[in-house]
């Protein structure tokens, strides 16, 4: 670790050299009596008015002979954070985080004062997690603002934040959040150990860290949850989970994460229990529809048409008999087209994005059917599948790949192929664990106390609906 020297100019030159002449490195040199000093800033990261009013202005007006070091220490309560260091690397880290660094001639210590004032997006409703009720506030990019959002909601001394610097080149701040009274110490130790083992150079998003907390990063289903909502994160923390917030991204990671959580939304806890239960079952049904429906349609119509009611069968035959492609190919092609349009709509600028809907409706809904390339029942299947997949957006990636797999299985082997693939997927799901907690808990291994927030939603007045800490699920090895 390189230390600062007592020569001011030498320190400034050293820093300029380390920063390779970058244009946003600002040096304000001044003199208080016989003492030469310099205030170092990173342009665009600091609050200009605050620096001028609280630091530079008063510094420049100090009478000759003032003990500047003592003056800075006495004035430190006015700063938004204060520390001292003799290490150049630490100085650079604070400098690039928006702190003002004061160096003095004849002193090998740097005085660091907090004046962070970079511009950031204001907290608005998270675009990825819309709710009917609940707050309209979502996480933003700066880490400390996100931490304050969590603290505002849980004013409990057990709420603990641990900030760690990760990324060998990006030096990104990563915060662990947990409730000390509820969290499992063994899970926490595992998270700390995994975080310590991350040796990435740049961490630009929480998604970069996600694979490091999964036991099977190649699995179709992620065992790490994400959220953009502080209220959701607080709810998870109360159940003994650990939140991981990364500076520069509004998406927090949550571990452990269970499969049933994909079907839970914050709104469920604000709605009446019977309605919330209905919505839960709707989501479970949507999962099966968006994963299995296209494959079942292909498999049953090709291999087991006798299972369909005769009227429906006749309609399907009438629609499909003139289409040129085999049923399985038709299904694959049309779903591929849909994914192309969805991806295009995601990347297009908003003013042009609405055109995708028009093109999609024309291409698929009208022209393709009229031209006899695909049958109208297939369009219905695609539409129903797409709508169902939007009901559980967090499972979109997994259901997409499974959908194609089931279409192939149904097209090649009918219900036999679909059933065998179901078995394989199910055993794969059963093998997953999230930080030692079985992924399909509390359904299997069965934990009846946890079912109150799974298959249905018990009322808040029911004392049994107080949540089960995730580490108390059946199948977890207790410390």
């Amino acid at each position, binding site marked *: 670790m390189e230390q600062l020297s007592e020569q001011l100019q030498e320190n400034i030159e050293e820093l300029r050299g380390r920063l390779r002449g970058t244009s946003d490195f600002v040096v304000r040199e001044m003199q208080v009596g016989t003492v030469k000093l310099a205030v170092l800033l990173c342009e665009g990261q600091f609050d200009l008015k605050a620096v001028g009013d609280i630091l530079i202005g008063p510094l420049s007006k100090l009478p000759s002979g003032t003990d500047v070091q003592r003056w800075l220490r006495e004035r430190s309560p006015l700063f938004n954070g204060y520390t001292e260091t003799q290490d150049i690397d630490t100085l650079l880290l604070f400098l690039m985080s928006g702190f003002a660094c004061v160096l003095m001639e004849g002193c090998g210590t740097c005085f660091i004062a907090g004046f962070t004032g970079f511009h950031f997006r204001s907290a608005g409703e998270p675009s990825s997690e819309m709710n009917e009720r609940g707050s309209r506030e979502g996480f933003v990019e700066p880490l400390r603002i996100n931490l304050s959002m969590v603290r505002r909601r849980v004013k409990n001394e057990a709420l603990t934040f641990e900030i760690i610097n990760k990324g060998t080149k990006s030096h990104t701040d990563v915060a662990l959040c947990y409730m000390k009274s509820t969290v499992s110490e063994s899970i926490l130790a595992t998270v700390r150990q995994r975080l310590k083992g991350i040796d990435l150079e740049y961490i630009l998003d929480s998604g970069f860290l996600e694979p490091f907390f999964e036991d099977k990063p190649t699995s179709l289903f992620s065992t790490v949850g994400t959220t953009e909502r502080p209220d959701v994160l607080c709810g998870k923390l109360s159940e003994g989970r650990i939140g991981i917030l990364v500076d520069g991204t509004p998406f927090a990671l949550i571990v452990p994460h269970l499969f049933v959580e994909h079907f839970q939304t914050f709104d469920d806890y604000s709605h009446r229990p019977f309605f919330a239960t209905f919505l839960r079952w709707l989501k479970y049904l949507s999962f099966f529809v968006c994963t299995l429906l296209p494959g079942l349609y292909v498999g049953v119509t090709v291999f087991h048409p006798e299972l369909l009611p005769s009227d429906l069968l006749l309609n399907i035959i009438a629609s499909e008999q003139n289409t040129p492609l085999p049923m399985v190919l038709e299904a694959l092609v049309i779903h591929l087209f849909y994914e192309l349009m969805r991806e295009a709509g995601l990347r297009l600028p908003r003013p042009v994005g609405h055109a995708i809907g028009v093109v999609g409706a024309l291409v698929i809904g009208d022209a393709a059917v009229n031209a006899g390339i695909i049958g109208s029942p297939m369009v219905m299947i695609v539409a129903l599948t797409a709508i169902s997949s939007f009901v559980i957006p967090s499972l979109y990636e997994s259901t997409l790949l499974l959908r194609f797999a089931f279409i192939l299985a149904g097209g090649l082997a009918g*219900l*036999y192929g679909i059933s065998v693939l179901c*078995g394989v997927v199910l*055993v794969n799901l059963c*093998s997953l664990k999230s930080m030692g907690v079985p992924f399909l808990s509390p359904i299997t291994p069965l934990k009846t106390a946890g079912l109150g927030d799974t298959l249905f939603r018990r009322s808040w007045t029911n004392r049994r609906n107080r949540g089960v800490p995730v580490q108390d699920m059946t199948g977890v090895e207790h410390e």
Partner: protein
Amino acid sequence: MNRGSEPVLKGKLSARISAFQLFCLLYLSRVFLALSKTGAQGEQGFTLSSALLALAVDMLLGFAVMLPFLLYMRGRDGGLLENAHALHPAAGRIVGLLFAVPSFYYCAETVYQFGLYYREYIMENTGTLIVAFLMALAVSYAAFMGLESVARMSFLVLAVSVVTFLLIGFGAAGNYDPIYLRALLFPVDGVWKQAMDTFGYFFDLLAFAVLYGNTKGGRGHSFVWSGVLGTATVAVLSVMVSAALGDGFISRVSFPVHTLAGISELSIFQRLDAGYLVCWTLLSFVRGALYGFCAYRCLYYAGGAKRAVPVFYLFAAVLTVLCSLFALVGNAALAASTLFQNGLILTVLLVGTPLVLFLLERGRRA
């Protein structure tokens, strides 16, 4: 993390499941019998009452056969394989090999039954080899995933199976004719012979012996309850089939519950044979995976309990070859079935092995 690494696979081989999960596995294994045979297969002039009594006799025989094993295991850690291996590595190898053979047969037999059903009722023109091959691969994959995964899945399949049976039962209610149940009043005849002929179908005795060391607590209760409830389920399904299709039906036709599902109609579900198909496939999958895991575990000890990864590849290869053989050469399956059907091999293994190990340990101490 390397999913196929030695420590990972060894961990899966020694994974522990709960008593309830063991119950689910053993119950499903026994209920599989009902979907393929209903316990009264192939005997002319057999009455429903005799068949039901034979089931009860088989259940009690099963408890009796496992008594020496339970007495031997009392107060010991681990299972039969671990204790044999601890006594002497050679003993572990021999016991592993002896239990691996029937485990492989039971797994391949499950895949064979699965393929037979598909060929007879679902896709008549499907190649027998491809059905068996794909199922063998799927079962090998499930065994690779480990006992914990299969055990967790078994609870879900149990729930699906129970719901399916209930729906089929209610759906077929319109076809029940009490006149067919007069067979329950017929004189009982040949119960002991029937019980002896079908005792070998109760593979779950072997699974219990192999997985004893992998289960935490309450193992005896799981075994007894799975036997009682499994036998009761087989009996109820037999009665339902007889009541809807006639007394002689269960003794003449394979997969009688499929036929029952075909005539069951329930409101919007219409025919329930599609639901039965799903239930059958999942049940076959779990049962095949269960005995596949047992075979893998026994083979691991037969190999000296050293290398888990190469043993797994050997297990998968043997299973695939066996399943393909049964699919291509129907007589091979029949011959093997004749060998294991009456339960003599199973009984000798389950009674003789603990006895021999006990005597060897006594001899060693002396």
